[in-house]
């Protein structure tokens, strides 16, 4: 086995990790800040991809899709929070699970009715087609761009959470919502905005993934499982954990493919099982924080 191949495999793992982070981020935000386990995550990811397709077909521009689809689906997320999730705050954790589980079905069936069951091609933006010579091998330009976009989003998120007043309130609200309410912060409005942002980022993940996977009503079902694995491995409620876990899962899957390709998918679940046995709160989860 030569070093070039191992390097390529590692890079594939990192790129896959970036995709996994992107697919898990919205899930991790909504869970970390609101403790709502969003089982419609996969479906909203898929809706994001279809929204992107809709924009691309009308504007001819992938970049507009990257901007407009998350905004539109994020606005839809605000509606979901206001109409469906909000009445369930303070109720047992199963209630929002059941609700979003059902919502996922509704969204998938809705897309099937509107766009058909077959799946629709989603072309890679022409400017990003092709491979780049990295010295040790050729790698698709688009996947490199995805790594860059994900890194950018993470930096923006980190700055917003750590360096702004809004971020301070969000973090405090996640830690102790009652105290924040006593201090006069409108915690409901805060949750509404955070939920909207989480769903918008989920949709962005869908648009970014679409050129790699095509677009079909069921494309989100595996994404929900992947997002769950990344969030659990990283630690419930830890954004940093989700990033590390995404990369870790990507690399584990990639290196497993090198030695036992048929085990590639199961390896991520094995990793999750091991992490849960050794550290039930996840790699970076702090018991009590954010939950």
């Amino acid at each position, binding site marked *: 086995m030569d070093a070039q191949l191992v390097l390529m495999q590692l890079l594939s793992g990192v790129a896959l990790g970036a995709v996994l982070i992107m697919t898990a981020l919205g899930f991790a935000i909504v869970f970390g800040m609101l403790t709502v386990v969003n089982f419609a995550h996969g479906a909203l990811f898929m809706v994001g991809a279809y929204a992107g397709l809709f924009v691309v077909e009308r504007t001819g521009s992938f970049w507009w899709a990257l901007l407009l689809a998350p905004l539109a689906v994020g606005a839809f997320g605000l509606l979901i929070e206001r109409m469906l999730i909000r009445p369930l705050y303070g109720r047992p954790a199963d209630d929002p699970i059941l609700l979003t589980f059902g919502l996922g079905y509704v969204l998938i069936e809705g897309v099937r009715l509107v766009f058909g*069951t077959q*799946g629709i*091609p989603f072309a890679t933006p022409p400017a990003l087609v092709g*491979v780049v010579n990295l010295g040790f091998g050729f790698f698709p330009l688009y996947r490199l761009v995805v790594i860059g976009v994900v890194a950018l989003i993470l930096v923006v998120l980190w700055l917003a959470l750590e360096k702004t007043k809004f971020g301070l309130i969000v973090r405090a609200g996640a830690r102790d919502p009652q105290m924040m309410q006593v201090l006069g912060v409108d915690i409901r409005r805060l949750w509404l905005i955070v939920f909207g942002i989480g769903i918008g980022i989920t949709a962005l993940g869908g648009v970014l993934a679409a050129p790699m996977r095509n677009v079909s009503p069921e494309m989100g079902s595996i994404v929900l*499982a992947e997002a*769950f694995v990344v969030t659990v491995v990283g630690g419930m409620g830890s954004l940093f954990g989700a990033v590390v876990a995404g990369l870790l899962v990507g690399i584990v899957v990639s290196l497993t493919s090198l030695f036992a*390709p*048929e085990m*590639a*998918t199961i390896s991520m679940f094995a990793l999750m099982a091991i992490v849960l046995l050794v550290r039930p709160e996840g790699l970076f989860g702090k018991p009590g924080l954010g939950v």
Partner: protein
Amino acid sequence: MASYDSRTLSRRQLSAGLGAAAGLGVIAMPWVARAQADSIRIGFPIPLTGPFGAEAKDQARSAELAVKQFNDAGGLNGRKAELLVRDDKLNAGEAATRTLELIEKDKVHAVVGALSAAIQLATNEVTRARGVLYISISQSDAINEVKDFSRFTFHEALNPHMTTAAVAKHALKKGMKVAYLCADYAYGHEMLRGFKRAQAAIGAESAIELMHPFGASDYSTFLPRIIAAKPDVLSVCNFGRDQANAIKQAVEFGVNQQMKIIVPVLLHNQRLAAGPDVFEGVVGGANYYWGLEDGVPSAKTFNDGFRAAHGGAIPTDYGAYGYTAVRSLLQAMTTAGGTDTDKVIAALETLKYDIAKGPQSYRKCDHQSVQSVLILESKKKSVMKSENDLFRILAIEPGSESMLRSCVELGLPI
């Protein structure tokens, strides 16, 4: 919100999460159809929900056309046929349960269906134990072999052995190195076995053989090894969305610039879902392509019937299986003068039919449909004459028993 204990919450959510992930792709669709006492009832379990849903719906639409045409022509001395479509959800247990219900509750006279190498075997287990005639319309080699075969079992679909032999004959040459990326379940294993047998006869060899998990969303981690193996040909042996995703990502990695991509079965719906640029130049086999109508009269008749019934739409490869299987069954019932299973089996064994793609017949010893294999190439976007003009027919490998493994090899009495 903050009042829950974090650990119990996460554990419970974890188990629920895994269940939901498994369940989300599978949505129940009740298909209500009441059986009439005197009609010819054909059970039709297919995976309407799940990753093969598009192909399954085409099977149902084509099978319904076959029944409608039979009834419009007066049925069997006035006795009408009825198709009872059920959703097996691409799950072996579900398929067995639905099939059992069709037999016990709906009292079907025969079962046609399944769209997975593994699930047709589960369906076949039930029908053969109950002595009910079953025509499978999904690729499988195992179903012809002595372990799974029964006198009630017929196989209308192509099998991996004949498909891979025909594709290899046109795509592989002596001395070529072939990389395989195959789904890790019955379909992928049988196709790989077929290709390896065919390449050995041709003088080509495997460069690398990778099995990928069924339903994988990302293939990028398999591609560096395939590229490093420097093969002349990449053979992608998987089905449904896996085919579109695997080829799309291979093209993303520039694989099509370095090697020829072939598939055992070039799927109509997946080509539609992935677009012409992704599939350009991909070569694969097929049981049917609508463009056959230029040279085969029965294909023209089938297409015209389908167009009339479905607003100008054209039938697809797996859809055609539903049509040819149900039509051949109804023809045999007409010959047998009724639905008596033994008489219908005897009629099917001697039936010569040409209803969509040229002459076909069921070989007596293993009930495999002897039929042509089409070799197709996906067209470049610029030469497509219409949006349905997907493939160029490179060759039609005529149906003959020499394409099949001998019944001695299958372990069956001749």
